[in-house]
């Protein structure tokens, strides 16, 4: 049974519509405090990347031999590294490389994936067959190995690493988008658009692609977390960010020689990565659940 009520007098049904939903979005957010927390963690991380100066006055690269390997304290929240640099400042400034890298990776993944997925789903026939086999090939290679190979070809650096991670993830996006395109191209609103006279290109751009992208939103958020970890991992291996620029994976790599004496050098940046990725995944699940409703 639906709650839609039709009032009996003629044209009476124009007078009664369901109440408009304004302001409920805010209330819903308050009820989901964990979502708010996750959003806050992500927002802080993004602010670190945009304006690190607001959060720390210390320079991430200033070397001070007198202050090396200090434990966390009021002056140095995350302690200092082997060259006496403030670790908190390095984590804050490292957010830019890590987050930009992940954003680029996701952007590359979504763009490349959308183009291939949409073409395969929309055109069908041999285009579909060729694209899907290509995707199968990409997916059959272990993802991280593929990313390493691409970085080696492109050269070392955060952007190169991000690009490599993006290309690797584009196969997953292409697959998802192809499925969504197949679903929405047979939907009635696409049929209605065609019947109303819309050009085939208009239908693709105005109806099919936007409606296929909405369900990928949750994958984008998950992929964002994965990209942070992968880029950090590439940097850890020395394939990503190059010293002395701070990057979360790089910080963990630098700190691992002092794991026994100064564990905070590894623990602090690692926990930061974990917090940001968890926050991203939690938001992703929230989006996915909202879509199901």
């Amino acid at each position, binding site marked *: *049974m*639906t*709650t*839609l*009520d*039709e009032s*009996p007098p*003629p*044209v009476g*049904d*124009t007078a*009664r*519509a*369901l109440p*408009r*939903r304004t302001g409920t979005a805010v209330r819903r957010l308050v009820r989901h405090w964990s979502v708010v927390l996750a959003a806050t963690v992500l927002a802080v991380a993004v602010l670190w990347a945009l304006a690190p100066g607001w959060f720390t006055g210390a320079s991430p690269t200033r070397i001070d031999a007198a202050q090396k390997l200090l434990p966390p304290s009021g002056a140095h929240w995350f302690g200092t590294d082997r060259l006496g640099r403030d670790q908190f400042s390095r984590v804050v400034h490292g957010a830019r490389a890590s987050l930009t890298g992940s954003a680029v990776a996701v952007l590359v993944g979504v763009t490349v994936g959308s183009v291939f997925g949409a073409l395969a789903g929309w055109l069908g026939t041999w285009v579909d067959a060729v694209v899907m086999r290509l995707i199968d090939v990409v997916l059959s290679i272990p993802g991280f190995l593929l990313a390493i190979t691409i970085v080696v070809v492109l050269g070392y650096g955060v952007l190169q690493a991000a690009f490599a991670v993006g290309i690797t993830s584009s196969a997953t996006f292409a697959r998802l988008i192809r499925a969504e395109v197949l679903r929405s191209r047979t*939907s*009635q*609103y696409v*049929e*209605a*658009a*065609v*019947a*109303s*006279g*819309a*050009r*085939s290109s*208009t239908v693709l751009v*105005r*109806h099919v692609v*936007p*409606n296929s992208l*909405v369900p990928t939103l949750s994958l984008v958020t998950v992929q964002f977390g994965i990209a942070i970890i992968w880029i950090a991992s590439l940097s850890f291996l020395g394939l990503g960010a190059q010293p002395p620029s701070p990057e979360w994976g790089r910080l963990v790599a630098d700190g691992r020689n002092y794991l026994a004496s100064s564990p905070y050098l590894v623990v602090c940046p690692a926990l930061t990565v974990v917090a940001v990725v968890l926050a991203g995944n939690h938001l992703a699940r929230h989006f996915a659940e909202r879509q199901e409703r």
Partner: protein
Amino acid sequence: MNGDSPPESGAAPGPVLSVADLSVGYRVGPGTRTAVRNVSFELAEGQVLALVGESGSGKSTIGHAVLDLLPGNGRLLGGTVSYRGRTISGLPARQLRQLRGRAISLIPQDPTLSLDPIRRVGSQVDDVLRLHTGLDAEARRTKVHELFELVGFHDVERRYRQFPHELSGGMRQRVLIAAAVAAEPDVIIADEPTSGLDATVQAQVLDLIDDLRRRTGTAVVLITHDLGVAADRSDLVGVLRQGRLVELAPTAEFVRSPRDDYSRHLLDSVPARLEFPDRGSGRAPSHGPAAVEVTNLRKHYGDHVAVDGVSFTVEQGETFAVVGESGSGKSTTARILTGLVPATAGRVRLLGTDVGDLSAKAFRPLRGDVQIVFQNPHASFDPRFDVLSVVAEPLRSFQPVRSRHRLRRENRDRVVAALEAASLPASFLHRHPRELSGGQRQRVAIARALVSDPRIVVLDEPVSALDVSVQAQILALLDRLQRERGLTYVLISHDLAVVRAISDHVAVMRHGRIVEQGAVAEVFGTPACDYTADLLGAMSGRQLAIR
């Protein structure tokens, strides 16, 4: 049927089922929404009570409350349900389970959802016997075979071993009926037992319930939105509106002279009672070329022949209806006319232009003249669009991309005009279709079809998803628009009453062929073909038609 006295039986007199002052609410957010308010009725042995009402009126809630099968957020707010004088509402779950199926059983609404897809249908009926009788496996199997014969299956052993997906909708409903009557209950609650079934199947299923009732003296609560079914099949009618029982009367009396205003309004909205002047006998010949001319149209999907050599002509300004049951090819025909699927063979002329072998691209210029209204308006709107974008789509489609900005204001004015033609206020422009009721959505769909000033509108089951009073409003709207604008309608419908109300000519389709066509009055008055006669015979609500 009407006027039948209940069968003789030795049971004590007095009601089998009585519901007194029943109120039911659903928890919604922090509050409680009352769905049923102070409903009382009594049902004697062998009687059929039809509970009618529109969606949201609480009729199904009553059925579920009687069996204590309310969903998790439902709650009995007051009143009692008694079975043979014994109060059963509020009984502990274990005692209720003994009553369910044996004393009172349910024929659920959707046969597709109500059968376990991975178990054989025979064993699903067997479950009821295992719970409520002491029979051994062998005896139960024999009993299931008997039940299957009772509900009209022939090859009962094969049916026993089939899975739900191997059966048609009507057969699945029979399985559910077999399960419902297996333990020989005294009361059957049939919750929309035939909605979604074709007319002839619906008639068979209702005949079957009727037959069982007469043989066993079971009382039936028939929950339905279809006043025709209620009028044909019940002894008592209860009309529900917003959870209240506004009228409870013997059926014959109710049909003749309803006491409540709302009941009268509902009855007058029934398509069988709708009357638009000078319909049905074929209009005066129009001028100019025929709006639609179809010659020997065929459509194959692989080996399956959906449309098998169909020919008809639609004159400008008339309504041409194509009726048939599911799978008859009527929707495929509509989709070919609107250029959504290409024909396999045959000729289609629209307004004098041959479109039979046009590609989708070549068909495009004609789309301004040929629009379509779908059965389910909500599915035909892009979920991201508001009303303005939905209705403006046909306009934008024919405007060059560069002049879009310049034409925005003009488009908006034309959209407002189209909305007003469909009796919607301009304030709806920025509403989202999700916020609208079913009738309002269908009006938006009609506005979209009208905005480009088409000459032919294909109506694909335009009212079958709507409540009866909204149906009447939409049909009146379609009739008015046709007169004002000289539109040509091609109406696809399974509902003969709707067809009769607003059509001039009709074609009856079966298995991809037209078995009969002509003026509506002739075809419906003196059907030449047996199948047409069957369809007319299966039409519910003959008691209601008072022409």
